[in-house]
């Protein structure tokens, strides 16, 4: 190979590459964002799945979501939330009346099922209306009436006070919009 062709070949390749680059970078406009939280058909629509309105056996279970990591759910797989305005020591729920129709207190009557988390962290509190509610590390637990599917976290961040609970009782702060950046190191 002589010096002429040795200098010409890389230059030609560079030229071709630049042309390709120019072709590829034209027109990148389009909608941005990630899959949002539009209402889904819901578990009740799927044959063989529990109706979200049906009462789950009392108890809590730990789960690890593929995107948000560890959370706590009820025994049907629906996300359990905690409320920043509640008191922990002693436990006391500040979500009553209308609030408790959107945020349904997790029932604590009968034998409690505890799957995958520290049983010592699980307790109960008596609500103002006399019913008993599950607590985790002292935090009263709730299900969001708008969650239609197991694992939904549509109530996350509502009023800056509602968050899915982690198995240790802390809050899930990672969101469906931020996990990819976190997970893939962007």
């Amino acid at each position, binding site marked *: 190979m002589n*010096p002429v062709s040795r200098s010409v070949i890389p230059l030609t390749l560079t030229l071709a590459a630049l042309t390709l680059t120019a072709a590829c970078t034209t027109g990148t406009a389009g909608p941005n964002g990630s899959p949002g939280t539009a209402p889904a058909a819901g578990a009740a629509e799927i044959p063989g799945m529990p109706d979200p309105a049906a009462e789950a056996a009392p108890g809590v279970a730990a789960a690890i979501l593929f995107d948000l990591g560890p959370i706590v759910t009820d025994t049907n797989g629906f996300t359990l939330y905690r409320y920043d305005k509640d008191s922990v020591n002693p436990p006391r729920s500040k979500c009553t009346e209308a609030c408790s129709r959107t945020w349904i207190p997790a029932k604590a009557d009968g034998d409690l099922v505890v799957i995958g988390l520290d049983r010592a962290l699980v307790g109960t509190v008596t609500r103002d209306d006399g019913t008993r509610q599950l607590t985790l590390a002292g935090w009263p637990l709730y299900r969001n009436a708008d969650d239609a599917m197991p694992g939904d976290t549509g109530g996350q961040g509502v009023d800056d006070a509602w968050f899915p609970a982690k198995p240790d009782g802390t809050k899930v702060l990672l969101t469906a919009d931020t996990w990819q950046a976190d997970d893939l190191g962007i």
Partner: protein
Amino acid sequence: MTSASDATRGFFRVVRVLLAVTTAAAATVLGPVGDAHAQELSAADKNLIVNVKLAGLWEMPAGMWAQERGKSKRTREVGRTLMIDHGRLDTATHAIADRFGLALPREPSDQQSAWLGEMKTARDDSEFDRIFANRLRYAHGVLFPVIAQVRAGTRNDLVRDYATTANQAVLRHMTLLESTGVVDQSLMPEAPVPQSNSANAAMDVGFGELALGLLLAVVLGGGLFYALRALRGKNTRTRERAAAAEPEPVPSAPGGLDV
């Protein structure tokens, strides 16, 4: 060396002119493409969304049954995790389908229903564990490359995010199902035989436009011919000296990797 650097400068001038011409041509031919298609779903995009929905329609009940009936503790845990993850995926699936007005199936396919039937009629709980892990692992193995191809090639930004999410979930589910220890890999869909030279062929895809391909061929070919002629004329002495000093290039070894 003076003549050599003159020749190089001359060559760079030629390159700059060629570059300007081809860049302008590419911009003209491909300019408006991105905007026009970003709002629509391709057939491949739709196929992915519908198939993720179908997967959820049978894997959620399957996961729930495994949580209740699974013989091994691991099967029960995996079933529960799959049910919850597919619940999340289903919500994302409906969000993107609603965004683009895509109708979604409400029932699993006949094959998926048959797999659910197998699980229901399993003779005992250990047979249930095997059917659950192998049927679900097989179905995930079919879906995985569908997701990967859309993730790699879709023109739609929302679908790209959605495919990233689905890819993460399905990769995790295959691994979880295998962790039950009862998956028979010989039953899984095999990777296709690679096409020869597929990497090089893939590089050509960007030149889909026939007009652009022809234009580039003419411009590059003509430019190269001109440049070679100009350099050869000015550069003979340098070339001869260099050729005498340099060793012969080593021929590529027969049977070696020649790609």
